[in-house]
Structures are given as structure tokens and as C-alpha cells.
């Protein structure tokens, strides 16, 4: 077997050799993000929403950015949001981040068994949610808690799900963070990657069949694009021109493998879209304004009947994959500090301060207010039961909801369990 670890393909040799993607920096190395293709803020043009896929193919390789390094908003994608919306956006992002940090702490203290945070990726969920209509259906990955926050979900509900207590929306049947919210139109997060992509296409097709103008929006990670479901979703979306927005959150990492292992070394993830006949855009995922603008554009395109969109959000997974993961085994500890697109909250704050609608004082007050809100919510959540103290879920929850109506053989098994554990 012949393996090459270099990036110079097929160097001198006349025989095929395998290329093994190698992250630019391993633990102890100096972080190196020179591979991330950037465009200048404001430099990418904004075509009409009915532009043909062919004519806008370049947008899948450029990087749509609005905020520059000095906190100015520039170029044709500037969404010109009003002050109030900016403040709400910042608030949702900050709440998402503080909530995540709190839950990671609860996991460390043994109060929940597992958690996944979205640190560094808050702008994507929050800006997209704000740019969509409340009636649009969302199909999140496990790193989209910002959607729940931005759509106004009570933190107590989210916490109870992580605690798997008597107020858990999943009734003790799903891992922490795998939320759903029927009223808020947020589909269930699942433990198997990428399945939500074709499901969103199905939902969008049904919406069109029923004559609604709601769209479906789904999220997966860079690593998840390798699953066949990605291909199924893009094919179906393109064939039927379904009103769906398919988002790839390229946070550079999929547990321990960097985005090169998902095929991101030579072309962008967005660039796969045009091959299927899907309009595709690549956006700075840490730029709230750019994400908002791109989402609005894609939603309008889908809603007006011009077909689906694929959006790649370029961002960085600033935290561990999950509380079971230790990234210091596979990447430099301080990599995030060198990420060329900065931090979404820091950048938003800088922009708002510069435009005169935010101050350090307001930021401090907001942080204090949200922090208190989170700890009060936790106390509330614990009143529905913790991992060690009651109240506990009823054992018969084991047998409920397997079918719409409990069949006879499950009733029998439920009753037998009750007899066995002496509840009868």
C-alpha cells in the first residue's frame, strides 16, 4: 500500500497513491487557517432571487460577508436591520451562549449526563431563525439550540429535556439536546446524522402540494455531508424544485476529523449544489448580518417558486464536539483564537457599538439579566425531578407511544413489569 500525506497530488510518481487528508495543525502546532478561502467584506454581489443556477454558480465559491474587521457593515448584502432587531439578535445569541455554558457546567457537576454546545456558531441559528417566518418548518441538527432560543422556547423546557425528568418533552426517551417543539415548528433532532435533510425535502414538498407558502429549512454539519442522505436530499430537492433551504454548517470539524475528510479540501461544500442544479451560497457564518441577508434571499427564492437553495456557513466549532470529547487530543488548544472570521457575538457587539445602538454598560446589564434568568430556570426545571431525586417518570412510559394505540401485547408487558417491580 502506498500512501501520501502531502497535498501535492500525484507528485513525481507514475503510480496512483492515496491522499490522506491531514489537518493543517495538530496539538502543539501553530494554528493555520490559510486554507480557508475568504472574500473581502462587501465584495460579493447580490443577484436577483430568480437568477439561474448557472449564472450564480460563483456564489458557491465566494464568501458573502457584510461586517468588516472594524465593525462596519458594507456591500450589497447589508440587510439594514433596525436597532430593535439587532438588539434582539444579540440577546438571543448571548442567551444561547450563556445557556450552553451553564449546561456544560451542569454536566461537569454530574447533574446531566451529556451535552453538546454550539459555542461560536450562535449567529447561524439565531440570524436564520429571525430571517424566516414563524410558520416555516425547521429541521435542526444537534447544534442548533439558537433556533429554540430565537423562537422563544422556555429554557425550563430545554433543561427538563436534558434532565429527562417528568416535564421532559421526549418523556425520557431521547438524549440531551435532541429537542423538538411542535408549536414552535421545530422538528425533532435525531441521533443519526443527516436524516433530517431528506425529511425536510419531504416536508417542503408536502407544503407545496397543500398550496402553502411555508418553506422547510434544515441543518447538518460539514462531516454529515458524506452521508448518502445529503445526496438524496439534493437530488429530490432539485428534481421537484422543492421550497427548501438546506444548510451545511461547516465548523471545520466532525468530532476528530477536520473538514478535509468530508471532501472540503478542493472545493467548497456549497459548490456541490450547482452540480445538482441547486442555487448555492457560501456565507461567513460568524457574521450575523451576512447570514441574515443570505437566509432572507434564499427564503424569498424558495417562497416565490424559484426552487431550493444550499447554503454553506463557514464557522468554527469553538468547543468540544460533546461533553464526551476532548479536542486537545486532535487539534491545537488555542485554535479558535486564530480563526480568521472571529467570534460572532464579539463582532456583532462591535458593529452595534460602532453604529451607536449598544454600549458596554448595556452588555453587562444584559449578561447579568440573562445569567439570572438561566439559574432561575434551572431551579424551576429541577422541581420536575433531577437524575437522582424525584419525581421520576412513570415506568409505563416504557410502553407508551410505541404505537398510536397500545397493542395488547404491550399492555401485557407493561402489566407484567408492574407486577415484577411490585407496583401492583
Amino acid at each position, binding site marked *: *500500500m*502506498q*500512501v501520501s*500525506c502531502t497535498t501535492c497530488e500525484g507528485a513525481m510518481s507514475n503510480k496512483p497513491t*492515496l491522499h*490522506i*487528508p491531514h*489537518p493543517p495543525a495538530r496539538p502543539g502546532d501553530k494554528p493555520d487557517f490559510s486554507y480557508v478561502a475568504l472574500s473581502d467584506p462587501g465584495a460579493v454581489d447580490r443577484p436577483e432571487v430568480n437568477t439561474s443556477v448557472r449564472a450564480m454558480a460563483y456564489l458557491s465559491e465566494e464568501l458573502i460577508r457584510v461586517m468588516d474587521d472594524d465593525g462596519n457593515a458594507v456591500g450589497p448584502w447589508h440587510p439594514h436591520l433596525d436597532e430593535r432587531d439587532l438588539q434582539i439578535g444579540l440577546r438571543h445569541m448571548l442567551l444561547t451562549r450563556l445557556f450552553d455554558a451553564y449546561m456544560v457546567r451542569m454536566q461537569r457537576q454530574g447533574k446531566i*449526563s*451529556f451535552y453538546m454546545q454550539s459555542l461560536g456558531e450562535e449567529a447561524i441559528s439565531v440570524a436564520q431563525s429571525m430571517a424566516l417566518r414563524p410558520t416555516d418548518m425547521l429541521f435542526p441538527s444537534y447544534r442548533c439550540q439558537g433556533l429554540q432560543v430565537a423562537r422563544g422556547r422556555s429554557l425550563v423546557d430545554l433543561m427538563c429535556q436534558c434532565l*429527562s425528568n417528568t416535564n*421532559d418533552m*421526549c418523556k*425520557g*426517551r*431521547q*438524549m440531551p439536546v*435532541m429537542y423538538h417543539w411542535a408549536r414552535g415548528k421545530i422538528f425533532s433532532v*435525531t*441521533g*443519526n*446524522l443527516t436524516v433530517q435533510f431528506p425529511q425536510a425535502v419531504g416536508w417542503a414538498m408536502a407544503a407545496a402540494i397543500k398550496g402553502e407558502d411555508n418553506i422547510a429549512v434544515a441543518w447538518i454539519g460539514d*462531516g*454529515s455531508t*458524506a*452521508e*448518502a442522505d445529503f445526496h438524496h436530499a439534493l437530488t429530490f430537492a432539485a428534481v421537484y424544485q422543492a421550497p427548501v433551504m438546506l444548510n451545511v454548517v461547516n465548523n471545520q470539524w*466532525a*468530532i*476528530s*476529523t477536520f473538514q478535509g*475528510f*468530508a*471532501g472540503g479540501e478542493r472545493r467548497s461544500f456549497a459548490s456541490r449544489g450547482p452540480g445538482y442544479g441547486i442555487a448555492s451560497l457560501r456565507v461567513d457564518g460568524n457574521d450575523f448580518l451576512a447570514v441574515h441577508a443570505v437566509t432572507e434571499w434564499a427564503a424569498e427564492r424558495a417562497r416565490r417558486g424559484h426552487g431550493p437553495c444550499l447554503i454553506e456557513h463557514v464557522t468554527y466549532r469553538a468547543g468540544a464536539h460533546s461533553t*464526551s470529547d476532548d479536542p486537545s*487530543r*486532535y487539534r491545537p488548544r488555542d485554535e479558535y483564537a486564530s480563526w480568521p472570521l472571529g467570534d460572532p457575538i464579539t463582532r456583532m457587539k462591535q458593529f452595534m457599538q460602532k453604529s451607536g445602538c449598544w454600549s458596554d454598560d448595556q452588555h453587562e446589564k444584559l449578561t447579568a439579566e440573562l445569567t439570572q434568568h438561566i439559574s432561575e430556570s434551572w431551579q424551576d426545571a429541577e422541581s420536575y425531578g433531577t*437524575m437522582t431525586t424525584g419525581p*421520576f*417518570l412513570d*415506568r409505563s*412510559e*416504557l*410502553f407508551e407511544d*410505541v404505537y398510536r394505540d397500545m397493542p395488547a*401485547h*404491550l399492555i401485557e*408487558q407493561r402489566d407484567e*413489569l408492574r407486577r*415484577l*417491580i411490585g407496583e401492583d
Partner: protein
Amino acid sequence: MAEAQVKPRTLPYVAAITDGVRAVLREQDNAFVVGEDVAGAGGVYGYYKGILKEFGPDRIYDTPISEEGIVGLGVGASATGCRPIIDLMFMDFMGECMDEISNQMAKMRYMFGGRVTLPVTMLTMAGAGASLAAQHSQSLEAWICHLPGLKVVMPTTPYDAKGLIISAARDNNPVIVVLNKMSLGMMGEVPEESYAIPIGEANIVRPGANYTIVAIGRMVHEALKAAEQLKDLGIDAEVIDPRSLQPFDTATVVKSVEKTHRALVVHEAVRFGGIGAEIASQIQELAFDYLDAPVARVGAPFSPVPFSPALEAHYVPNADRIVAEVKKQLGI
């Protein structure tokens, strides 16, 4: 020094897996490992730790996240004579790659008129009890035991983990090694040298006189605990670990039942349609005249594995459940 006894080496199950993989890579030049997060990180459970360093990047490969791609790679590469070890992070992810497993890997040799040999080994992780919910906790061995062309083994101790991985890799057929995540920390003797455990040979882990318990996977350890409790009822249970489910060592089980006259089969998979149904049926066919009672079965309820530790504790079978079932069967 001369008189010092060499203390047998003990290792946790997780390190025994590593040791088995290491032995395979040493003895088979064209063996290599592929899977998600296996090389750089050493696997999400850590059982490939050190392999990349010891054997280099042409013996262990991280892959894109595509289980179907991984199994397809295993089929294609093994058809050339390589002996890939393909890793499926969770057995539940068989859903993502079942066509490659069931319609390709299992039957390709047969349908190609015997002109292709697929010496591929798949390692995968099963089992409930870790609060990982229904998409990361299943025991789906019944799915694959039902597929002619595959071999299926389930090591329950560190010793068996190493030995069965080595046997699987030496075998000229596709073999699926079903590991158990709750056993990763279990300690046991593991010899330094390479050794093989014949695929298709059951292990009588506890000899007994008047009761037979056939226990699958991690339930072996629960059956051993149950056997202790059953002593008080005058029951001397023989516990059999089949180790291999396909092929299945029917003879050892039947011989035991001819001696004990009563039997129970336990697995943590859902009871309905589980491999226990096959085993119970074989006992009834082949040892009917020796049986004093119907063959009992213990398994999970007909519902998905819950997340909540409080619920999961009542879902996964254990020693108490085995004892209760024995009592019910014998009317005591």
C-alpha cells in the same frame, strides 16, 4: 527470579480489542483498519489508541462519515484479497449501510458462483445501559444472524475479545464482531501472544447439574449472578456463552439440556423475534424428550431503548429478571 511465577497479564476489554487488532495487523500484511475517528483520535471508545503510531498511516484510515461507504470499501477491498477491518461506531448505524451488508457482503460470494472471497471483518458496538437512547443502544444481532453468508460473534470477556477478533480476521468470510459498550472497562486475563478462538464453539462458563442458561453477550455476566442466586433454590445452573451466534454451537447447548432438563435463553435484544427464539426452538426440536419444562426466554420489552436511566434500568434484562423468569417457569 527463577521461582517467580509469571503473573498472567490482565487487561480491560477495551485494551483487549486493541491487542486483537494489533495482532491482526502484525500477522496479516494486507490487513488495515478503516472507520470514523479511528486513526487520529484512536476511536471514540479509544480501542484504536496507539495503532496509527505503531503501524503508520497506511494501516489505519479515518473515513468520511458514511457507513455505507465504509462497508462498500470493505467489500471492494476484500474482494482484491486485502483483509480490511471496518469499524461501525454504533451497531445502530447498520441502518445506514444495510444494503452493503445484507445484499452485498453477505451474498456476493454465493451469487458470483464462488469466484470471490471476502475476508472482511467488521467491528461494531452494541448494547444498552449507558443512557444513549434508542439510536445508540440497540442489540441488533438478530438482523445479521438471519443473513446467510455472514458469521457473527459476540465476545463477552477481554480474552474472547482478542481471540475472536483474531479468528474473525483470519476467516475467509465476512465476520461481524459485536462488541459491548458496557463491558469496555471489564478486566480479564489476556495473553500477550496471538491466539484464536474457534468461531462456532460455545464456552461453558459455569458448569452446572440441573439447569441450563444460554446467555448472549453481556447477559453472560448477569446469568452468572443469577446462577449464584438460584443456588438458594436448589438450582445448579450451567451457564453457556455461545460466543458465536452464526454459526451457532447447537451441540453444546443440546448436550447440556439433555443433562439438566430445563433451559432459559437470555439476551438484551428485544425478546420478540430475537436470537433467543431460534435457540429455544432448536432446543425444543432436538431435546424435546429431555425437557421437563418449556424453554424460558428473557429479553427486552417490545419497545425502543429509553434514555432515562430510571426507565432504562427497567428495560435492560438483569440477574433479577432471570431469576424471576426461572421461578415463573418452574412455578416456584
